[in-house]
């Protein structure tokens, strides 16, 4: 029997009104605007876009404001909004080798053509709190230099020329889309990359770290890390040609991993790949490490039973919205479920008590 219980509407309404008031905080402090969040909390905005799986900085900033800075809640809002959008099409795969880079570093080649460009990085800062930021003040404009028109070729291409690294064969097959068809195992690499790029940064980081510490060890170098904008092109059926429909900032990471060779592959370097929305390099590097760990089967490596090698484990737990949805639902009313559990425990106790009395009587 299912008994519906009603009630709580007024409490819910009042709770939401209070939430709105708490969100605003002390009214003697100026209210945050969405453009302020977009411009000044840009890395939070980037994370929400990457894991919300929707590139729209204004929407991500709005979601951060609405969620009081709870980024998983903000990602939830973006995912919910995303489902309301009609799908106009899919882009031509972005050409990251034509990226307008604001940052490009290689840990493997010091003198790479195009050079090492640090960009606006936290690297080499001392991680000391800067109390000057607590006061308002003008920021001096950043130094400028004459940009070189030189290309920034992909670092892995150098190794590729000598056949020292496994090649990535171009393939224009329409990739599966986990937002349209449920995930199936074993998953192909396209599915894995889609799940990882929208996966929770903390979860993917933890798994990547586990591979560095020895769970599915495949020593990774950051062959290249680049951040910048790329044009997004889409074929427009009514026009019969492709146009740029926008521009997105991406972070791309290619790792170069030691590989001793296997039954099917010669000794060579192998690759892990990370590509994420926005300036999100911790996530992109993590993604590349986990991508590489998940490739053990196609490279003929041993499955050492490491968590990062377990595709189903990784992919089915990487999504923080699925995870938080299931996790947080257990705080919602389960009165009837619990009532039946209570009945069961009482019955078991009565039976146990009965048995004991029976035994005592027999002795």
């Amino acid at each position: 029997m299912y008994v519906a219980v009603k009630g709580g509407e007024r409490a819910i309404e009042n709770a939401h009104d209070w939430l709105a008031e708490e969100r605003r905080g002390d009214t003697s402090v100026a209210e945050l605007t969405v453009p302020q969040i977009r411009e000044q909390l840009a890395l939070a905005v980037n994370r929400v876009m990457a894991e919300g799986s929707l590139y729209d900085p204004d929407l991500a900033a709005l979601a951060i404001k609405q969620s009081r800075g709870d980024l998983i809640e903000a990602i939830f809002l973006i995912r919910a909004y995303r489902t309301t959008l009609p799908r106009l099409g899919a882009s031509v795969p972005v050409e990251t080798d034509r990226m307008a880079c604001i940052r490009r570093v290689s840990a493997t080649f010091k003198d790479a053509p195009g050079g090492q460009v640090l960009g606006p990085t936290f690297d080499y800062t001392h991680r000391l709190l800067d109390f000057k930021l607590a006061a308002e003040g003008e920021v001096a404009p950043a130094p400028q230099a004459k940009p070189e028109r030189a290309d920034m070729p992909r670092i892995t291409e150098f190794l590729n020329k000598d056949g020292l690294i496994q090649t990535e064969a171009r393939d224009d097959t329409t990739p599966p889309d986990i937002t349209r068809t449920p995930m199936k195992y074993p998953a192909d690499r396209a599915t894995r990359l889609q799940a990882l790029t929208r996966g929770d940064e903390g979860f993917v980081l933890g798994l990547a770290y586990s591979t560095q510490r020895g769970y599915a060890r495949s020593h990774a170098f950051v062959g290249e890390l680049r951040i910048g904008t790329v044009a997004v092109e889409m074929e427009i059926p009514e026009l019969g040609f492709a146009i740029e429909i926008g521009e997105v900032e991406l972070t791309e990471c290619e790792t170069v991993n030691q590989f001793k060779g296997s039954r099917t592959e010669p000794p060579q370097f192998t690759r892990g790949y990370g590509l994420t929305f926005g300036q999100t390099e911790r996530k992109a590097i993590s993604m590349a490490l986990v991508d590489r760990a998940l490739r053990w089967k196609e490279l003929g490596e041993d499955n050492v039973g490491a968590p990062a090698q377990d595709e189903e484990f990784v992919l089915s737990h990487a999504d923080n919205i699925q995870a938080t949805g299931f996790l947080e639902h257990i705080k919602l009313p389960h009165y009837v479920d619990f009532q039946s559990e209570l009945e069961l425990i009482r019955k078991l106790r009565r039976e146990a008590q009965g048995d004991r009395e029976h035994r005592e009587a027999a002795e």
Partner: protein
Amino acid sequence: MPMTTTDLSPETERRRAWMSLLATAPERLLSDLMSALGPAPEHRILRAPEVGGVMVRGRAGGTGAAFNMGEMTVTRCALRLADGTVGHGYVQGRSRDHATRAALVDALMQGAQAEEVEAKVLGPLRRARDEKREARAARAAATKVEFFTMARGED
């Protein structure tokens, strides 16, 4: 299968370029520049501005198999001028006005007013875009590492 971008006629190549420019144009700037052109020409909406999502794709390893990254917001619109010219607008983001203006410019660029629209709208948009790109590139260039080797003096 649509034509690849390599075998387009020069006219189509030009149209492709202005549509692409309009897609990322700052909305406010586009609106201001179009006001300078005078009142919007008479037109009929063929496809009302529609906000949607486009799935952005990447390639494994940058060069390999295509995969789905995530979507971006795009707004599109189609309209017809009184003389029958059809204009299409595809712009990044969720602004219906932006998409409509982009479609108007696309239509005008195919007609007699093209030269004026090029000078008063597209030119300034292109300059604004280039300036913004240059500013980013110049800051990036200033963070390029100059390596030097220190002699260790052991031999």
